[in-house]
Structures are given as structure tokens and as C-alpha cells.
């Protein structure tokens, strides 16, 4: 036998449930432009019908519906798309960092142009040619000295600027690591909150959104994997649990976040610039390994992402601390050192065999070439060259009009460095093998051209990959938005739907009210 008030209860439930749905619609509209917000849906479920099977069940024709309830409020989201998005996002972070590092280097090298190192050297060679036609001319000598000075200063400028940018990248790595550590900390705190709410049978949707947004942000810096970990208790099936965030160090998982605890990333030999107890700025020598919550992760195991891109610009050891420093900036700096050393040493070797206007011989033109390392910063004009007559333009003594050594010097530009000995004009020869030059192939010019070519190729690749991963991320993001974004039309439709359902339920109450009125006030009054 059904209760007299059965209809009232069913209608009340309907009103409550539609109201909940209407409020959620309002929440969606309110967050239509919130970053990382996922549209929410109230899962409406029919409540348990009456009667339930049992010995004392009333004998009525069938089960009667008892109305509706809002079972849960869930996010409309596809986890698989999140994984794709994060994968593309970390690639984008990596290539962006790399493209940026290359672009800064290109700005400094300024090639091809009429003011780069190549042009400065061209002018120096030209000045020497002019000297060869006017060896006794003070002016021609002075021009050679000034152009030589320009070459030296260009070497200094390039080397110092690249070092400066490299230091800036180091600072940027520090800022990035601090940011990563902060995100890890926030994720662990969200995990803690979620772990407290879920066992009570609630879905903390907005905390989920915030956590997913943080993981998205983190994925740009470093390509992480996420593992869900149920919290137990009375959690709903749709509950997401806590996130464990990890990277793979070989086959071993290194956790950045595990439940409520967050590890921090640091550099074992780095420095703690901001004084927060974490060595977030990489050592000057380059990065060999990272410390993640006490586990040493070698650079080669560091996954893709902005952090890796930055470190590749800054300098790293592929095989522990014993290998050579690799990376965009250290390599270009080393190349400049090699070029400055080779150029200066070779030039000196020819210059020392010539004679100055005053008969002096055996003098060097460039100084500061004691070692290859740092040569681009230390190369300078020898103090002897302050006296212009010491510039050895002649191949023989007491021949003021002899400019043959100036021609020899001008031809240093095109000497093949792979030769063992090179014979120049008037019996002057250079034993390349004994000079121990760091560059042993091509000429001074072709080596430099090759490096600019390599830089261009690196930049071209970085730009192309950046735009590729941007497109891919964009398309994944679109699919994700397609699933999760708020559509105002849809919400309006829902609003009308729920409003009408609400109104209808209210009307139902009125109908039942009239019915009851009939029973209570209208029955048994016949003939009164």
C-alpha cells in the first residue's frame, strides 16, 4: 500500500534534484572563462523504487518510482587527453627554451652582416693587403694596428656577451627550479586536502581542477608521469585519489610528489642564491646530475621539458663529471677560444719571421695566447706593436719597400690548417704541426662559417620543432576543450530544462495538494 503522501515526497525530491542541477549550471556559467575549469554535471539517478522485495511487501501491481536524487556532481573530463597534452607540453617547453637560447646567440654573433666577426677579420686582411703595397707608410701600418685591435675587441665582445647570456640562463634555471619546487609543494598540499575529503563520499571537483592545472603547468618544465592512488574509506567510484608524480631514472621511479609529501629538485654542486635551503642555481662548470628528494638523477636521464632545454643551453656533462662540458653556449665559447688561439698563434708564427721597418724581427703581433681555454677573452695586441715600425711587413731586413710578409700575413686567412708545413713567399714557411693548434682542418674562415651554419641548423630545428609541438599541443588542447569547456548555449538549454523540471515538480505538488484537499475537505460532505 502506498503512502498518501508518496507523490509529495517524489515531487520534493525532484525539486531538490533539479535545484542542485540548476545551481551546478550556474557554477558552470560563472566559470566559463576560468582557466583549467572543467564543466560539471549532476548525475541524476532514480531513487530506489517501492516496494523492495521482501516478505512483508505490499501486494500492489508493480514497483512504483519514488523520484530522483542527485547522486554526485562529476567533472566531464578525459584523462587520456590530459596525458597527451602533458606530453606535448613538455616537448613545447623544451623546444621553446632551446629556440630562445639559439635566438639570443644569433643576436650576439650577428652573422651574416656587415658588422660581425667575419667582416671585422675581412677588414683586417684588407688592411694587410694595403700595407703590402705601402710598407713604408705610417698610415697603412696604423690601419693594420687599429683593424687588429678591432678583431681582438670583437673576440672579447663575443666571448663576454655569450658568457653573460650563459649566466642569465643559469639564473633562469634557478628560477625554473624554484617554480617547479613550488608547484610540487602545491600539488602535495592539494593531495592532502583531497585525501581528507574523498573518504567522506564527496568529489572535490574544483580541487581536482586546480591540481590538474598545476600538473599541466609542471609538465611544461619537465615531462612527468602521473599515477593515481585511491585514498580508500567511503570514496565514490568516480573519486580520483591522490596523484603520485614521478620521472624515470633508468628503470627506477623517482617520485617528485608522493601523496602528501613533495620532493624538491636541486643541484648537488649548485648554489643557494635565494637562501631557502635549496641549491637551485646550477654550478658554473655545468650540470652533471640533479638531486631529486635525495636521489641523484644523471642529466642524461632528465626527461624533456623547459628545464632540460635550459640546461642544454647552459652546459652539461653527458657522462658524469669526467666528460667534457657540452651544450650550446659552452661549445660556442670553446669554439671562439679555439678560433682566437689558432688565428693569433698562426699570425704570430708568420709575423715573427718578418722584419719591421726598424729591422726588428721575432716579435709577436698578438699576446695573451698562453692557453687555448679562454683565449677569446685574453687575446690582445702585443705591446711591441704600439711602435708601428715593429709591424713586420718585410721578409728581409733593411728593405723598407718590401711588403711581402704583409702579403704572407694577409694569406693566413686561407691557410689550410690540415697541412703540416706551409711555404709562403720569400722562403718563409710555417710548421703547423709544431704549433699545436686546436683546429686542424679547413681554414680559419671556413671553421667559423661552419659553426655559424651549425648554429643556424640548431636554430632552424628548434624553431620547426617548437612550431610542430605547438600545433600538436593546440590540437590536443582543442580536443580537451571540446570535452571539458563550458558551452553557454548548452548551459542555457540545461537551465531551461532544469527550470521547467523544477516548475513541473512544483506543479505536481499543487496537483497533489488539490487532490489531498479533495480528500480532506471535500469528502463526506454530500448533502450538507
Amino acid at each position, binding site marked *: 500500500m502506498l503512502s498518501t503522501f508518496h507523490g509529495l515526497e517524489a515531487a520534493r525530491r525532484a525539486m531538490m534534484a533539479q535545484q542542485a542541477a540548476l545551481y551546478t549550471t550556474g557554477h558552470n556559467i560563472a566559470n566559463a572563462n576560468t582557466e583549467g575549469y572543467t564543466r560539471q554535471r549532476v548525475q541524476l539517478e532514480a531513487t530506489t523504487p517501492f516496494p523492495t522485495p521482501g516478505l512483508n511487501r505490499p501486494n500492489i501491481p508493480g514497483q512504483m518510482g519514488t523520484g530522483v536524487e542527485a547522486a554526485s556532481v562529476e567533472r566531464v573530463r578525459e584523462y587520456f587527453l590530459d596525458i597527451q597534452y602533458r606530453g606535448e607540453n613538455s616537448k613545447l617547453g623544451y623546444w621553446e627554451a632551446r629556440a630562445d637560447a639559439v635566438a639570443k646567440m644569433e643576436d650576439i654573433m650577428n652573422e651574416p652582416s656587415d658588422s660581425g666577426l667575419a667582416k671585422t677579420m675581412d677588414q683586417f*686582411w*684588407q688592411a694587410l693587403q694595403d700595407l703590402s703595397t705601402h710598407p713604408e707608410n705610417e698610415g697603412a701600418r696604423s690601419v693594420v694596428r687599429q683593424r687588429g685591435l678591432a678583431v681582438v675587441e670583437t673576440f672579447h665582445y663575443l666571448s663576454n656577451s655569450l658568457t653573460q647570456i650563459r649566466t642569465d640562463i643559469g639564473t633562469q634555471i634557478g628560477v625554473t627550479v624554484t617554480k617547479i619546487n613550488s608547484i610540487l609543494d602545491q600539488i602535495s598540499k592539494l593531495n592532502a586536502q583531497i585525501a581528507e575529503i574523498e573518504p567522506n563520499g564527496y568529489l572535490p571537483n574544483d580541487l581536482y581542477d586546480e591540481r590538474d592545472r598545476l600538473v599541466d603547468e609542471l609538465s611544461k618544465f619537465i615531462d612527468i608521469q602521473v599515477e593515481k592512488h585511491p585514498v580508500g574509506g567511503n570514496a565514490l567510484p568516480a573519486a580520483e585519489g591522490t596523484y603520485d608524480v614521478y620521472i624515470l631514472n633508468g628503470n627506477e621511479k623517482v617520485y617528485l610528489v608522493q601523496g602528501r609529501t613533495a620532493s624538491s629538485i636541486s643541484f648537488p654542486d649548485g648554489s643557494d642564491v635565494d637562501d631557502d635551503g635549496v641549491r637551485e642555481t646550477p654550478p658554473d662548470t655545468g650540470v652533471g646530475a640533479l638531486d631529486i628528494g635525495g636521489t641523484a638523477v644523471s642529466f642524461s636521464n632528465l626527461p624533456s621539458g623547459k628545464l632540460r632545454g635550459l640546461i642544454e643551453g647552459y652546459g652539461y656533462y653527458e657522462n658524469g663529471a669526467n666528460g667534457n662540458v657540452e651544450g650550446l653556449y659552452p661549445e660556442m665559447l670553446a669554439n671562439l677560444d679555439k678560433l682566437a688561439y689558432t688565428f693569433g698563434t698562426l699570425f704570430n708564427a708568420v709575423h715573427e719571421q718578418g722584419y719591421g721597418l726598424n729591422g726588428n724581427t721575432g716579435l709577436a703581433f698578438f699576446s695573451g695566447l698562453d692557453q687555448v681555454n679562454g683565449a677569446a677573452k685574453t687575446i690582445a695586441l702585443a705591446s711591441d706593436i704600439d711602435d708601428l715600425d715593429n709591424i713586420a711587413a718585410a721578409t728581409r731586413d733593411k728593405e723598407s719597400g718590401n711588403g711581402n710578409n704583409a702579403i704572407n700575413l694577409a694569406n693566413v686567412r686561407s691557410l689550410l690548417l690540415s697541412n703540416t708545413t706551409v711555404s709562403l713567399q720569400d722562403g718563409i714557411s710555417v710548421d703547423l704541426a709544431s704549433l699545436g693548434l686546436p683546429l686542424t682542418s679547413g681554414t680559419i674562415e671556413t671553421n667559423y662559417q661552419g659553426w655559424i651554419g651549425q648554429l643556424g641548423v640548431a636554430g632552424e630545428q*628548434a624553431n620547426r620543432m617548437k612550431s610542430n609541438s605547438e600545433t600538436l599541443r593546440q590540437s590536443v588542447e582543442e580536443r580537451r576543450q571540446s570535452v571539458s569547456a563550458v558551452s553557454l548555449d548548452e548551459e542555457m538549454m540545461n537551465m531551461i530544462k532544469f527550470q521547467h523540471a523544477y516548475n513541473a515538480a512544483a506543479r505536481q505538488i499543487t496537483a497533489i495538494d488539490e487532490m489531498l484537499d479533495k480528500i480532506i475537505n471535500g469528502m463526506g460532505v454530500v448533502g450538507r
Partner: protein
Amino acid sequence: MRITQSMLANNMLKQITRSYEKLDQYQTQLSTGKKITRPSDDPVVAMKGIAYRSNLAEVEQFKRNFSEAYNWVENSDSALDKATQALQRIRELVVQASNDTYEETQRQAIAKEVRQLTEHLVTIANTKVGDKYIFNGAQTTEPPVTVNADGTITVSTNDQQLNIELAKGVYIPVNIPPSTAFGAGNGLFSDLQDLAASLENASTTGDELTGYLDKLDNHLTHLLGVRAELGARMNRIELMEDRIDGQQVIAEKMLSDNEDVDLEKVITDLKTQESVHRAALAVGARIIQPTLVDFLR
């Protein structure tokens, strides 16, 4: 696929940004006139660009060296022309003086003129162009011919060749060494001094003077030979300059082909991009569609 307003707006923004990037690229190309502004735009063009620039700088330098070579050869030739004229005059004087009817005083006068012309030849040998003596080999700061205290004249032995590089690895000698031009030791000047002394000597016969004519003719022929060689050298330099001129044109063309933009193409591209951009903006104005909100009371 489910499309929402925010997706439309985001997409729109992305497309317009991309369109701006292209406009920027074309405008940079137009304003710089170069296909590329940094190596990553096109590494091959960048690398070749550096090489072509060096190449062009080298060719331009050789062009500059040519004017030096001309300077040397032309000045040497003009000096030797003057020397030839002076010798011709001396020869005429000797022909006159060898006539036995000439009196002693007349011969004395001729001797004076010969001495003057000899001095003239000394100054010609010591021709200075700019700050260098052109007939003294590599010793360009010192005169090749010196008149000693006893009146004798010494010609230096600085017979070094001065070379100028006029093309890669091609060295052209540009000077005439002193002994080639004026004869070392008992060369031109000692002959002239002997001639003057003979003229001053009253006992010299006309036949003896005629003997000098042979010597003078030898010197004239020799100078002519030297000048012929200078002329030939000049020809060679001119031919080489023609070739270097050609090389310069080629080097400039290669540089230009490599990195200069094709203006017609870029302007066309820019115009196309402009209309695409306008279309994108026009579409953008339409993405803000009315929503259901507009139709609900």
C-alpha cells in the same frame, strides 16, 4: 566534435597571431632587402653569405691593389720617357760636337749642357712617387743614385723585385730595379761623365766623340727595351684587371642571388597575406555569435 565559444575565440586569436607573424616576416624582408636576418632562417644561405662576403671583400681588395700597380708602372714609364728624351738631346749634342769645325768654346758650352742633362737624369732616377723612390728596389726610402763628393755618380745595387698580389696567388713585379734602368757600375752615368770630360778636353778629336754615339745608342736601345717590357707588363695588368672586374661582378651577383629578396615575389606574398589577414579579421568579427541568452526572456 563539441565546439564552445571559448574554443572559437582561442582559435581565432591563434590564427590572427600567426597571420601577424607572416606579415612581420614579409615586412622585415622588404625593409632589409634580405631573405634572412638570422642564421636559423636558412643556415645554408647564412653560411654561404659569410663566404661570399669574404670572397667579395678579397676581390675588392685586389681591385684596390690594381691602382697601386698602375701607379708604379705608369710613373716608371713616364720617368723613363723623360730619360730617353734627355739621352736623345745628348746624342744630338754629341753629333754636333763631333764636327771638327766646332771650336773649343763651343764644345765647352756643349759639355756644360751635357753635365746639366746628366744631373737631370740623376733626378729622373731619383723619382719619388708619394713617399717612395720608385727606382731603388726594396729600399724605397733612399735614393738609388747618389752624387759623391768627388763628382762621381754611384747607382745602388738594390735590385729586389717588388711584388703586388693582383689575384689569389698571382704576384706581379711592378718596379724597374736601378741597375736595369740606369746600369750599375760603368753604366749610363759613368759614360756621360766620360763624355763631358772628353768634350772639355781640347785634344779630343771628332772621331773620338763619334765613338760615344755607339755607347749612347746602346743606352737608348736598352731604355727602349725596358720601356717595352713595362708596356707589356701594363698590358698584362690590364688584362688581369678585366678578369678581376668580371670576378667582382660574379661575386656581387652570387652574394645578391644568395641573400637578396626577390622584391616582386615578396610584395606579391605580402599583398596575398594582407588579404588573408583581412579575411581572418572579418571572420573574427563573426565568431561572436548570438547565444541562446539573446533569445531567452
